[in-house]
């Protein structure tokens, strides 16, 4: 058995384990879905008319087209929570020692978590999109735009999952691991998700314009509106790749330190 087939087989075993956890304890996945759905209901159903005025629309239908891409990003960011908790739980319990005393591919534990988390996040994001559509969200996107949007979202998901792995490895206990991803979850608020950054006070506005979620949000908005935005897309890709590399590198260093060879 080559190193690669062994790594693949071991990662698949770890993935099966994580998906079984998710199916058996769906509460975290559901919690990750509930926040964006509640915000969608609240901001469109309750504040929709007022906020619609603020973004230059007026009718409720206009505001949902403005806010839906941001809500989709929140769904993806919410996926971080369960990843961090799962990683931290594994690292603080005896099971990781069992894996480490077996001749298995070392990378498989983290790979299994990352792939498992991404599958969970895809499912919860699809649920959020379905709710948005049910509430009247419609796009003018062509198939190609949809594919580009999906590709961007998957890349963001990959990057944020590795960041979440890092946070899970840093946390001393699962309670701690459930706190730090909250920052990521709420970042889209201080961006262009709910209202345009132009409407914010100067300091906050500066932050909102330069934080990673804003270009991703704008790029996604562009694809879904059928009017792709080249500049934001490029900036988004740079952010995603940067976050993925940083998250992966930190995770690897931390994992090797916590579980030396």
């Amino acid at each position, binding site marked *: *058995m080559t190193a690669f087939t*062994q790594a693949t*087989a*071991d990662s698949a*075993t770890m993935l*099966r*384990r994580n998906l*079984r*956890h998710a199916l*058996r*304890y769906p509460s975290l996945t559901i919690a990750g879905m509930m926040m964006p759905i509640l915000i969608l209901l609240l901001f469109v159903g309750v504040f929709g008319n007022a906020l619609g005025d603020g973004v230059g629309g007026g009718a409720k239908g206009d505001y949902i087209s403005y806010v839906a891409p941001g809500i989709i990003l929140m769904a993806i960011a919410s996926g971080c929570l369960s990843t961090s908790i799962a990683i931290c739980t594994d690292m603080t*319990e*005896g*099971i990781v*020692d*069992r*894996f*480490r*005393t*077996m*001749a*298995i591919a070392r990378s498989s534990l983290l790979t299994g978590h990352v792939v498992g988390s991404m599958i969970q996040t895809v499912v919860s994001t699809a649920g959020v999109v379905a709710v948005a559509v049910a509430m009247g969200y419609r796009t003018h996107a062509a198939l190609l735009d949809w594919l580009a949007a999906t590709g961007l979202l998957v890349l963001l998901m990959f990057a944020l999952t590795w960041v979440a792995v890092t946070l899970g490895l840093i946390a001393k206990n699962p309670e701690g691991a459930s706190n730090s991803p909250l920052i990521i979850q709420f970042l889209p608020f201080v961006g262009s998700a709910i209202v345009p950054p132009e409407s914010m006070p100067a300091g906050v506005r500066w932050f909102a314009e330069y934080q990673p979620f804003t270009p991703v949000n704008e790029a996604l908005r562009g694809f879904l509106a059928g009017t792709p935005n080249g500049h934001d897309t490029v900036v988004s890709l740079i952010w995603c790749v940067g976050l993925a590399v940083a998250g992966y590198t930190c995770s690897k260093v931390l994992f090797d330190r916590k579980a*030396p*060879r």
Partner: protein
Amino acid sequence: MDTEPRQTAIFAKGLRKAFKDKVVLDGIDLDVPRGTIFALLGPNGAGKTTAVRILSTLLRADGGEARIAGCDLVKDADGVRRAIGVTGQYSAVDGLLTGRENLIMVADLHHLGKETARRVADALLERFDLLDAARKQVSTYSGGMRRRLDLAMTLVGDPRIVFLDEPTTGLDPRSRRTMWEIIQGLARGGVTIFLTTQYLEEADRLADRIAVLDGGRLVAEGTSEELKRLVPGGHVRLRFADLAALDAAARTLGVVTRHDDALALQVPSDGGVRSLRALLGRLEDAAVEVEEMSVHTPDLDDVFLALTGRPEKNEKVASK
């Protein structure tokens, strides 16, 4: 190592480990022959778990060298891992999976193939008396069941060498007995067992050889018989109804240890029937009534206390 015999399963020389400036292991030499049970005995904090973690590739030693099943601990860690199974002090089971799923997961990590994995899992469930709970989530298991599942998971890959870190700590007497039987069964099947324990009875009962670890050093090593020979012989304890009888007996027997508060005398003795009869005969001749008599042969407790340097404290309390 040239000096390492062919039959050696676990070999270590000069293992050292310190956490920051606290020395945990201070030069440990080990030589455990294949197919034997070796017990590392020591009080809490003696370094037992650190020794197991180093020998099972979980922790890197600061100095010294070790070979497990002929594989160097550092240069061929995966070779070591292929030969060993480890059951740590804290259960290494997945509480969200069922017992059967746990075993199949480990079998998959051994790349046994789907059919074999299921067969091995079911056989182990039966062997460890877990068939009824096979499809229940492990989080609902009792402590004894978790420990059995943990060991079953360790045995999935048929390891030649098994490390058990305090395998019976926290178990009720019946579960402990079951665990002992399992361990003895493994040894009969040719598996080398390296276990740590703080229970002398456990080491006495299971181990072919015992090493006493205290303060990071091996303070004694041998069979339990050899270790028992290290402490002075046993004694007979006699209790009397009143101080007058105690005085009379003390006069009759000469040099003995008196415990006036307990109205008791402690007389050196080998515990044999003949010497006991002679002792009682002398007391009877002197017309001294003995209320109660108990015979103490040296056990590992005495050895342990003598070696780990904690007996003085106990004696002070007793003689006060």
